[in-house]
Structure formats: C-alpha cells, structure tokens
C-alpha cells in the first residue's frame, strides 16, 4: 500500500483528460481529440492496474483508503477505498472505457471532442461510485454519472433518442431520490455519520430496516434493472450509440447490483433475509419471462438488452440466496457480463455501421462476407448463451449450484434459462450470420478492420480468460465475500 492515492487517480485522471479533450473544441481538431482521449483512457486503465497487483487478498478490510474531510457541516468525507468486491469493477470500468474510445474512433464524426469527453468523465464518475465509502459521496457520483449518459444518448443516439434519454434519466432519478432520503435518515440515525462502514455496524430495528431496504430496492432495482422497472433499458440501449450501449450494459447496470452488496445486505441484513423471497421472485421473473421476451425480439440491440436483464436476474438471485458460492457466482457473472454484453453490443455496432440496420430480418449470410467477424461474434454469442469454457458459463453455473443448495425448484427454474438463453442468442446468430446472402446490403459488407479486430481480441481475452481460468478473479473476492456473509448472518436488531 504505497502512498500514491491510486483511487483518486482512477477517478480524476479520466475526468481531467475529459476536460482536456473538451478544450480541443471543434471538429477540426477531431484527430487530436481522439488521440488525447485514447491516451486519457489508457492512462486511466494503467493507474488502476496497481490496484490489482498491490491488492492484499487475505483481508476483507478496505484497501487503498483515502480519507479527507469534505463538508464538515454534515460530516461528509472524501472517503475512498476498495475491497475484493469493488476493486474488479474499477478495473473493468477503466478497461471498458478504452474499448469505447476505440469503438467510436471512425464512427463518430460529429462533436468528437464532446463525445469522448463524455465517456472519459463518466468513467471517472463510475470509478468514484465503486470506490466511495461515504454515503453522500457515493450518491453524488451516482447521480452525476447520469448527466454524461443522458447527453450521450440524446446527442448521438437514434431517431427516438430524446424519449429514451428522458426515460433513462427520470427513471433512475426517481429511484435515487428515495435513496437520498434513506441516506439522510441513516445519517441522522447514526448520530451524524455518512460513513458506509459505520452504517454497516449500526443497530437498527426491523421496521426501519424494512423501509430502508425498500428504498434501496427501488433505487437499485431501477438501475439493475429488475422486472418490472426494466422498461427504460431496452429504449436506452436501442437509441444509444454503440459506445453508450457498451458502457450502459457493461458498467452502469452493475451499479445497482453493487448497491445491493454495499448497502442493502450489510445495512439491513434482517430485512434482507425477510424480503429475500420478494427479490428472488423478481429475479426469477426477470430470468424466465424476460428470456422469452428476448426470444421474440426483431431488433438485435433489443434482444441483447433483454438478455442483459435476464442475466442481471441471475446476479440478484445469486445475492439473495446468501451463500459464498452464490455471491461469488453473481460477481463473476457481473464481470463476465461486462465483457460479453460489451462485445455483443460492439458486434451489433460493427454491423450497424456498415448496413445501418439493427433488424435481424435485414441480415443473413453475413459469414460469407465477414468471416473474421462471424468467428468473433460466434464466440460472444456462445458466451452470452452461457456455454462452458466461456465466462458466461462460470457465473451462471455457480449461481445455479448455490441455488440448488437453497431450494431445488428455484435452481430448476433458473436453469431453464440456460436453454432459453441459448435459444434466443443462437437463433439470432443463425438468422444473421448463416444462410445465403440475404440482400445487396449484406453483399456489400466488408470484413472488420484492424481496429475492430483489436477491440474484439480485447473482449475475447476477457471472456475466454475468465471462462477457462476464473481463479484470478474469484480469489480476490473470497475474503470480502465471506466477511460480507458473516456480517449479513448477524442480526442487527437489539
């Protein structure tokens, strides 16, 4: 644990880089803006690597802690730190930012500086969310991260982008305003502390726990998103530019799930146990019902968006069966989904850039024209369907295994999605990629270029690496997850 404020760097390097990129101004300087953004993103990734290499995996305590007074009137601190749960997300986020900058390299040709700056700033804010240990600091990052995504969807999005941007913003804000009240309540209850770690230790009666749990649930369920508050996600995904979809799926959705682990479970453990049934029920609905909804989609982005909801259902399911296997499986699933869904959206973006359509019906026989692309797309489709040797398999398998120990029928219901998931992903793949060349648009498709190839390799390394050898990912989680479970098992009612 060196003296360098690594987490601060992880937050502020991308934000400052973003501001610098903004300063390049108009599109005449677009190449400069692109280079600067790439440098910023790579620098942002580099500063997060020591977080992993210097991580002490034998302690559940927060590491790389930074603590400075921020607003003494309310005892709000600039308090950062990561444990085995959050550390991986900081790195994943910084990694995704690099791919996003690369993904928009040629495609985005208007307001390049603003586009890239938006993603860099958002990346910093997201890192802030994952490393904040102060409730208000968390909230500030949480809300502020809405602004760049709102602008990204609204400016560079599809035809219905305004509707999607508003829906995205207002849905999320509704949840987070109630969350803010919950934070204020806990601040007063704990005698004037905004420290999340203090809140973990704070005794609470059953009634306040229940209310807090419900407030958290609304906030995080919208973000995850869980059925029935998921409706903003397909709209946002469909309208967002490729980069926006990647960040949304790979990182933004994880915030809700992360919130469950950081707030709901440890702060209201008794309520969590009591209301676990509710969350599990919602998760199962998401897994099964949304799985079938995905099957019926005509639009590729919508299909992947719905499959994201189903995958996140696995994550929340894994959390609320309260076993180490379940939570670790859910975390693996989150990270794997970060790679896989990011790659899926990128694949769709690659096709969309060429043929300007996302409709499955407009494609067919892509393999004849884009063999390299088809190979990568195949890999990620497999991973999305959760086939063994890909990262998607590991997480889902762990969650199902844990669920068997909890209740066989829940596990059985969840396992059916392996089938549904394979069905909708592979069916889409078949319709898009195989068969005869469907029309002249497809006939004109050119295979991926070196830049796209490179991005695919990055994603593939993540997805395959995690599928074949997940241990580097799981071993850093162990002690934090065990500590969390030990904590959740203790009643807070006195």
């Amino acid at each position, binding site marked *: 644990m060196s003296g360098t404020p690594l987490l601060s760097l992880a937050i502020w390097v991308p934000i400052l880089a973003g501001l610098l990129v903004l300063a390049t101004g108009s599109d005449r300087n677009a190449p400069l803006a692109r280079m600067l953004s790439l440098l910023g993103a790579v620098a942002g990734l580099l500063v997060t690597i020591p977080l992993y290499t210097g991580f002490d995996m034998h302690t559940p305590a927060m590491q790389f802690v930074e603590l400075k007074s921020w607003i003494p009137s309310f005892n709000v601190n600039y308090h950062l730190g990561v444990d085995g749960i959050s550390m991986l997300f900081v790195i994943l986020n910084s990694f995704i930012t690099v791919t996003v900058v690369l993904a928009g390299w040629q495609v985005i040709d208007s307001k390049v500086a603003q586009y890239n700056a938006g993603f860099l700033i958002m990346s910093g804010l997201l890192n802030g969310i994952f490393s904040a240990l102060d409730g*208000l600091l968390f909230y500030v990052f949480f809300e502020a991260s809405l602004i760049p995504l709102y602008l990204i969807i609204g400016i560079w999005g599809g035809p219905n982008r*305004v509707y999607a941007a508003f829906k995205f913003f207002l849905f999320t804000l509704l949840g987070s305003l109630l969350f803010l009240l919950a934070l204020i309540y806990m601040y007063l209850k704990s005698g004037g502390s905004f420290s999340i770690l203090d809140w973990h230790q704070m005794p609470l009666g059953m009634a306040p726990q229940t209310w807090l749990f419900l407030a958290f649930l609304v906030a995080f369920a919208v973000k995850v998103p869980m059925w029935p508050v998921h409706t903003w996600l397909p709209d946002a995904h469909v309208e967002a530019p490729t980069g926006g979809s990647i960040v949304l799926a790979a990182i933004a959705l994880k915030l809700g799930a992360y919130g469950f682990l950081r707030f709901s479970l440890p702060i209201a453990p008794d309520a969590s146990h009591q209301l676990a049934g509710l969350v599990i029920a919602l998760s199962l609905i998401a897994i099964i019902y949304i799985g079938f909804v995905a099957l019926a989609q005509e639009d590729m982005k919508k299909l992947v968006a719905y499959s994201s909801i189903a995958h996140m259902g696995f994550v929340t399911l894994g959390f609320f069966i309260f076993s180490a296997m379940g939570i670790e499986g859910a975390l693996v699933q989150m990270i794997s989904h970060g790679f896989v869904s990011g790659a899926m959206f990128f694949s769709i973006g690659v096709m969309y850039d060429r043929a300007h359509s996302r409709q499955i019906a407009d494609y067919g026989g892509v393999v004849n024209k884009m063999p390299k692309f088809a190979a990568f797309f195949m890999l990620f489709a497999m991973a999305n369907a959760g086939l063994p040797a890909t990262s998607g398999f590991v997480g889902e398998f762990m969650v199902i295994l844990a669920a068997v120990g909890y209740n066989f029928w829940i596990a059985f219901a969840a396992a059916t999605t392996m089938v549904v998931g394979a069905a909708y992903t592979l069916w889409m793949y078949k319709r898009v990629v195989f068969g005869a060349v469907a029309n002249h648009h497809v006939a004109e498709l050119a295979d991926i270029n070196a830049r796209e190839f490179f991005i695919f390799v990055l994603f593939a390394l993540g997805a395959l690496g995690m599928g074949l050898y997940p241990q580097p990912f799981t071993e850093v989680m162990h002690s934090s997850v065990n500590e969390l479970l030990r904590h959740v098992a203790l009643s807070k009612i006195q």
Partner: protein
Amino acid sequence: MLAMACLILLLDLFVKDKKRTLTFVATQLTLVATAVLTFAMTSADVGYTFSNMYVGDLLSDLLKLLLYLTVLVVLFYSRGYILEREQMARGEYYVLVLFATLGMMVMISANHFLTVYLGLELLSLSLYAMVAMNRDSVPATEAAMKYFVLGALASGLLLYGMSMIYGATGTLEIRAVAERLDTGQVDRTILVFGVVFLVSGIAFKLGVVPFHMWIPDVYHGAPTAVTLFIATAPKLAAFAIVIRMLVSGLIVVSSDWQSMLILLAVLSMAIGNVAAIAQTNLKRMLAYSAISHMGFMLLGLVTGVVGGDAPFVSISAYSASMFYVVTYVLTSAGTFGMILLLARNGVESDDLDDLKGLNKRSPWFAALMMMMMFSMAGVPFFVGFFAKFSVLQSVVAAGQLWLAIVAVLFSLIGCFYYLRVVKIMYFDQPIDATPIEAPMDMKVLISANGLAVALLGIFPQALMSLCAVALLRSL
C-alpha cells in the same frame, strides 16, 4: 453604518447625469463603496441604531454583502440590454436599482415592523416603476399594473397584520414583541389574526402559492434586465424579513405560522413545478420554477422551528434555507444573464425555442446554461444539489419524513423541464446559425458565474459555514 450607506446612495442620486456610461460606473462605484463600508464595519456584536429601529449583526452584514454582489453582477449583465433599447436607455434604471437596493438593505437590517414595511415599500415602488419602464410594451405595462395592484393589496395585508400585532403586544419593535410574547400575557386571538395577515403579506412578496399570481406575468412581461433583478436580489431581502419577523419576533406562536407555511410550501412546489412543464416561454418557465424554489426554501424555515428546543438543529435548518436562497440567487442570476446575453441586437430571446441547438452555436455557453439547469434541478456536482440536500436533511431531522417525500417527488417532476432545456440546447438543431457575440466583460462574468455554480458544488463547505455562523451569531 446604515446611515452612512444611505447617505452615499442618496448623494449619488444627485451625481447622475445624462451620460449613461458615467451613470453605470457611478452606480457600480457606489455599490463597491457601500460594500467596503459594510465590510469594514462588520463585527460579531449585535448593534442597534435609530432608537432600535435598525439592527446590525452578522446576518445583515453577510446578506448585504451578497446583495451588493448580486446587484453588481445584475448591472453588468443588464448594461448591454439597456443600452440597446432606446426607450429604456435612461439613467432611471440605475437610479431605481439603487433605490431598490436601499430598500432591501433596510429590510435586511430591520428591527421594527415599520422599518420592514418602509424598506419593503421602497423596494416595491422601485420595482413597479422598473417593470413599467418599457413604456411601449403592452405586456410590460400589464405586468406592472398587475404587480402594482396586487402588491398594494399585499402591503395592506402586511400593515393590517402589523397593526394587529401592535394591538396584541403594544409594541412594534421586533425583539420587544418577542419579549412580550414570552410573558404570555397577550391576547391570543388578535395575535393569531395578525400573524395570518402577516404571513399572507410575506407570502405575496416571496411569491408562493396561492399568492403567486403576479410572478409569471411580471417575469414574463418585464424587460429581461428587470426580471433578472426581480428574480435575484429581492429573494435575499425577503428571506431576511421572514427570519426577522417570524423567527426573531414571533417564534412563540410558531405553531400557528408553521402550519400555514407548510401548506404554502407544499402548494408552491406542486403548482410551480407542474405549471412550469407547460410553459414555452423561458422566462415564464423560470417564474414557475422560482415559485417552486421558494416553496422548497420555506420547508427549511418551517422545520427549523420544530427543533426549537434544540437550538443547534433549528440553526442548521435556517442556514439550510439561507444557503438555498443564496445558491438560488446565484443560479438564477446566471440563467437570466444567459437570456440577456442571447438577446442581443434588440431582439428578445426568451422563448425556449430560441435556445435550440445552442450547443452548435456556442458549446461554452451551452455548457454554462446546462450547469445552471442541472443545478436548479438539484443534480450533483452542482451547488443546487447541496442546497436541496441540506434542506431535505433538516426536514428529515425534524421528523417530517412525509414532507421530505413530497418535496422529493415534486423535484423529480421539476427535473423534467430543466432537462427539457438541456434537450433543446443539445439535441435539437439550431434555427439560426449566427454565432453568439457578447462583450468581453459579460463573457467573463457569466463564465465566472457558471464556474461558481460548479465549484461551490464541489466545495460547498465555506458558504455553508458562513450561513451557519451568521445565523448563529444573530439569532
């Protein structure tokens, strides 16, 4: 101290001549000089002058300094606008602004109900005239008439309330009223009647529902430079008289005015936010948003009283309100400044559609306007978030959880129309592509204003503790 300030102001009125630039400079110098004087005489003690009619304490010093700053900024923003409009390009604007400022200073330092009234009338009369300054404009004249008639009514209500309080307590000096009330030998019925009238009068001046009718018309009809003035500085003064009259004077009967204010606050937030959605005129939309903001601010005042027995809690609630007002003034100064900046070459630019594609025309100004909007909506990292947060915090601390939930829900509704402004600036195509030109001083100032909104959002502590200290020393 006050006498000195008044003297300078009055002296300055005779200095005025036809040259507008000179008037402008003279006005600004007056403000700076007064500010220096006030600053020099700032002391932690509470001092009284004019046979206890005036009070000089830290609260009044702080508010006055903020007032000078606001007026200074307002004048910078308005200068170009005034110059371009022949029919209003007179020194009168500056004179009236100074008179209004004097009125507000009197209000801020009032320690006597009549002093409050005096200051209020000085302010109001100047404002009536300012609203009507654009003589050829029908909406402006209509707005001025409306403002005048309703304003006179409200002043009447206020006076009536004061007379009843006099009847009940036998004095009009604010501290003395509080002392009399403490003894408990007061005719309760008359007193409560008085309080009702007083609260109505104040509610009119603050512009909260159901005494809000004048706000949209005046904001909309008045020349933008005047709207800018009305939307900013008087809010500081209004906050001061609420603190002086209700908190310093009538704290004993707080349970009576508190329930009234809760009702007013909730109604304001409801009507202000909902009505703002339907507006197509930016100034009118901001008028409704002002109504809802004042409602939010009242929440802080209201809850301060609940924790009456624990002084620390109530002080933090009042300072939350004060912080709210100050940040609101800062943000709305920036917003109206932006409207003025866009309204160049004699053409108004106050429809929402005029903002279309601002990002294409000037990314920097669009970014500034976006900061203002997000700040008003209460999204971090902008200062508006901390204002909302501190008020909400005090509301929850007072145990009024349902009130906090209502406030939160209405601010969600409010978010919609601020977001719409951002949408119009960023997502829509510009109607005319002329780049925006503005004089250098305006550019610098509005950038500073925008950055202040952002920087205070990242480091809100200094201003927060300033408000808290001022209130702690003064109450």
